[in-house]
């Protein structure tokens, strides 16, 4: 029986369940738990959102600690043995207490981090000269040398085993740079569609009814969930191999998904992947040029709201997603004042 039966509107319970899943996914899921987890995610959008938020909070905790995340641990099928057959009631009680305390601690810390980052009252505060805080793109370095860049709304679940390197994209958009390992295929699982990397760099964006794959290097095979791997020469027509400079748009339907493979040119690729952070280099450029470049690459935009600032020229090397650091340095060193106008716009003016 699935122990996760929360009502879709009971957010306290949903948050608690999400916290428990974070704990379990971090130590590795058993096959049964994996099924329960997938069911739980599929049951409600609120479940997925809660998991994404709690995952973010937990990763933020890891980031603060300077620790590498541990969600790429292999599955340990024996992990729950102690639970199923406790040696004594005292031991069982102690374990129950310890685990409850751990879950409670994670829930409290996670809720605190999520509250400080996502509480809607923050938005209210933003328009009142609140210091600029802008979330950056996250990068996960995996144990095999592969890496994943996660766009702001993305959440993934990493599940490595001896046979397969599997990543479930639960929400949003992520870019994958895969280390070659012919013995262990790298598979990205998105709502029943599997993208099998053949040593490659690719981007996957998951919207509600559509998955968009862009391959920038190497090849990726698109497969349906239940299908077995086959030799490339025997690839069926409905499971195409997507080559470099191609994209596959997979429309998710109740029956067989519809897969469309299209050519994509280098300009389109740059436009589509503009969210990925890179160092941008400016030489004595007007502030307006620098601001335009940041704006092209970020959801949060800056606007020069003062004629006097247009003549300011700057030299800089900055990560394209570090809007926050850029604005703060302007404020503290270049007599610039920054204030929020709504949720995603920062107005820049000369200090008076």
């Amino acid at each position, binding site marked *: 029986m699935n122990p996760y039966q929360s009502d879709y509107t009971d957010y306290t319970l949903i948050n608690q369940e999400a916290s428990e899943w974070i704990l379990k996914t971090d130590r590795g899921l058993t096959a049964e738990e994996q099924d329960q987890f997938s069911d739980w995610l599929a049951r409600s959008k609120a479940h997925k959102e809660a998991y994404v938020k709690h995952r973010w909070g937990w990763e933020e905790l890891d980031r603060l600690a300077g620790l590498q995340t541990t969600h790429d641990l292999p599955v340990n099928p024996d992990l729950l043995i102690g639970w199923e057959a406790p040696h004594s009631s005292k031991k069982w009680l102690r374990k129950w207490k310890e685990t409850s*305390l751990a879950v409670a*601690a994670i829930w409290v810390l996670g809720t605190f981090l999520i509250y400080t980052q996502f509480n809607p009252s923050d938005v209210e505060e933003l328009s009142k000269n609140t210091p600029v805080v802008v979330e950056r793109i996250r990068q996960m370095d995996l144990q095999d040398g592969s890496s994943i860049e996660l766009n702001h709304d993305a959440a993934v679940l990493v599940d490595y085993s001896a046979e397969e390197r599997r990543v479930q994209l639960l929400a949003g958009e992520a870019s994958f740079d895969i280390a070659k390992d012919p013995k262990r295929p790298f598979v990205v699982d998105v709502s029943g569609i599997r993208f099998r990397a053949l040593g490659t760099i690719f981007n996957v964006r998951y919207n509600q009814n559509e998955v968009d794959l862009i391959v920038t290097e190497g090849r990726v095979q698109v497969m349906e969930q239940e299908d077995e791997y086959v030799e490339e020469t025997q690839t069926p027509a409905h499971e195409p191999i997507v080559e470099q400079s191609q994209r596959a748009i997979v429309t998710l339907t109740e029956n067989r998904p519809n897969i469309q493979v299209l050519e994509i040119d280098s300009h389109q690729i740059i436009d589509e992947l503009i969210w990925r952070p890179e160092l941008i280099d400016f030489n004595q450029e007007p502030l307006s040029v620098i601001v335009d470049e940041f704006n092209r690459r970020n959801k949060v935009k800056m606007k020069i709201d003062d004629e006097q600032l247009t003549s300011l020229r700057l*030299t800089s090397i900055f990560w394209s997603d570090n809007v926050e*650091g850029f604005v*703060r*340095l*302007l404020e*503290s*060193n270049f007599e610039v004042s920054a204030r929020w106008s709504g949720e995603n716009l920062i107005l820049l003016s000369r200090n008076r």
Partner: protein
Amino acid sequence: MLLSAVALLTLLSCSPEPKHSFSVSEGYAVNTLKVYASQAQVEILFDPTSVRGIKTNALVGSHDTESALEIMTRGTPLKFNKDPKTGAYAILLDISKVPEAPTKQVSSTEK
């Protein structure tokens, strides 16, 4: 457990900054600061007019980003401020360190 976790985080956040290997020649700040940034893998921001004509010291060896910048700017009229959260640096002209005659020149170019 909660207190232990917080204590652990505090300890870990105080860990020393990693060192980088540098090889930056003496030269004009407008050029050398960017070489420094590239080797240190840090972000920098400066007004090119305020560093014009100022030379920085050579930098060789293994240093953390802040010590390296300290060596490069020692004895020059430059100072730097670090963004505590993202680690990015702003490099500025320290008016108090500018000798009297050059001060006037720099001021006139700034205005």
